[in-house]
């Protein structure tokens, strides 16, 4: 080894140990709180899953098809949704699908609930956005496996840590899209509001948000898809559902199981995408 490299290696900056110390500290300090949080979250998710599983699968599938009709007013879509879900039932993937569905919907909802206000705040405060940008980049580029470990140590195994890693991965997308939507509202629209005496709150609710809605709704669709893409990783730290089946198929090299669970995920993805797809009027 050349001397310079040798010197550098000898004086290695202990980022790894620092990080570990940091997480150890958090675990020590907040252990009981974190465990409590994680346990309640697990119970909540399990409760939801149990609730849905109380219903006969076909009834639940029909209810989801009804919801699809309600959202999109399309009989074709409702029939398609029902058929897709029947296929999943037919493959005996129903319980896993419901678990995944609960996880995905919760993660997407939480991401939107956190992401939209953050995106709005960023669009209104350019300085805040400049601070947020590197954090968002980090959240999106950090390989998922890297934060699986700390999340695992902080929250233990189960659905709760699965949900948390999913949110970490998904959150930047609604933030960015909300930011994009709000900051590209045409000035003419803002001025039309100001000229007639809109307050800041009225501007937000009556002008900016409706104008940005199409973009924000893209954020919702993407959040759902990204959440679905995380099910396999979430399963690695104990989140149940279709991800678990795929990991099992991988471990035991069962191509048939892989195909069945994989198809169930695809069907779920298509169903969700079509259901939340927003037809918007006008736009900008």
């Amino acid at each position, binding site marked *: 080894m050349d001397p310079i490299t040798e010197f550098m290696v000898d004086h290695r900056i202990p980022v790894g140990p620092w990080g570990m110390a940091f997480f150890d500290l958090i675990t020590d300090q907040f252990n009981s709180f974190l465990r409590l949080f994680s346990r309640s979250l697990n119970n909540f998710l399990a409760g939801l899953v149990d609730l849905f599983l109380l219903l006969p699968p076909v009834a639940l599938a029909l209810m989801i098809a009804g919801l699809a009709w309600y959202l999109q007013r399309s009989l074709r879509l409702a029939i398609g949704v029902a058929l897709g879900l029947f296929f999943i039932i037919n493959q005996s993937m129903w319980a896993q699908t419901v678990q995944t569905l609960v996880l995905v919907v919760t993660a997407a909802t939480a991401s939107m609930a956190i992401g939209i206000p953050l995106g709005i705040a960023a669009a209104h405060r350019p300085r805040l956005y400049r601070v947020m940008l590197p954090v968002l980049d980090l959240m999106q580029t950090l390989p998922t496996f890297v934060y699986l470990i700390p999340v695992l140590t902080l929250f233990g195994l189960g659905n709760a840590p699965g949900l948390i890693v999913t949110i970490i991965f998904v959150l930047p997308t609604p933030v960015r899209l909300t930011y994009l939507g709000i900051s590209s509202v045409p000035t003419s629209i803002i*001025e039309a509001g100001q000229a007639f005496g809109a307050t800041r709150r009225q501007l937000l609710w009556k002008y900016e948000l409706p104008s940005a809605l199409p973009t924000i709704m893209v954020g919702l669709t993407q959040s759902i898809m990204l959440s679905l893409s995380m099910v396999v990783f979430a399963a690695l730290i104990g989140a149940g559902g279709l991800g678990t089946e795929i990991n099992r198929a991988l471990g035991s090299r069962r191509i048939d199981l892989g195909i069945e669970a994989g198809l169930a995920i695809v069907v779920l993805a298509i169903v969700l995408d079509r259901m939340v797809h927003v037809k918007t009027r006008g736009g900008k």
Partner: protein
Amino acid sequence: MTTAVEFRNVDIMFGARQDQALAMLDSGASRDQILQETGNVLGCAGASLSVQEGEISVLMGLSGSGKSTLLRAVNRLNIVSRGEVLVRDGDRQVDITSCDEVTLRRIRQHRVAMVFQQFGLLPWRTVEQNVGIPLELAGVPEEQRRRRVAEQLRLVNLDQWAGKYANELSGGMQQRVGLARAFVTEAPILLMDEPFSALDPLIRTKLQDELLILQEKLRKTILFVSHDLEEALKIGNHITIMESGRIVQTGTPEEIVLKPANAYVRDFVANVNPMSVLTAWNVMRDVRDLAAAGEGWVWLDRRRTTRLKLASGAAGLEVERDGKPVALVPYAAPQSGHDGGGPVFTIPVTMPLKAAMEAMQHSAAGPIAVLDGGRVVGAIGVRDVLGAILGREASGVRVSPSTPN
């Protein structure tokens, strides 16, 4: 006459380095110098103007001359760097540049409404919902809102379209929605920033006419921006000409046309058709200047074919052409052609030059007598008309003293 809006020495400077840029402005630096040294853009400088209640006052000038900048100071869409903008609020005046947020909002909701060049409609709302939005902002109860919106939609002939989305309408209709949205506030002051410039010429003319008809009824104070002098002359009671951020002339339409203050204004005027501005009064020869044609008679024309006896009272005017008595009748367009032996027409002083020329055509280019309340005040011949069209200033065209409205 009360003043609805008054600008007092308004300077508007865009950019961060206000103090430095304003100091440069005071020391006489040009717009370009200020831009180069400070990066600030001079929007307008030293603008003073008052707009009377019930009039249409037009800001006119080339693109970039600061018309919108000045207009937008009235509802503080632009921040004024120095000076005052006084807006009538009931029986007091509010300085928009310094009032608090609550006052500003009240003025924007109830006193000053705006119409935009690009309409500024919300595409996700129906026509009805667009018109109603100012009332929503002001917290007007739903029921009253509906009633007022329906009323406004009828006023601009859009009641059939209430449920359509704004972007399903043609440009002309969209701007009528814009007008209805401004009218629904019942604000006495309207700001219109080139409201018709984005429209086809035919639609533009139609909307100008509609605006004038509505204005007859509503008597708003309108501050109107235009880059088109024809439009300004057509609708303005007063016209203010702006050139690179400064006001160069304010006056009535005829003052602008007949007494342009500088070459910039003259260039604009050179491109307008004088017939749309001048009236009989501007081109006639005064009765006192007409050549005498015997005891109590004057010649109406230079060729001395037609003479008129000036009676002391209003009644019993006598006219002779080539020595034979002819009738003196008020001109009412359109008439069938006459040749030679027809009557001599009279027209009121306020008649537009264009109509006066039609009268002339129908009397075989004979002279026309100009009446003011039954009294003959002058005469118009072909030479007077040609002089007005070709020479204008040179031909001694009459300019009335500036009177408000």
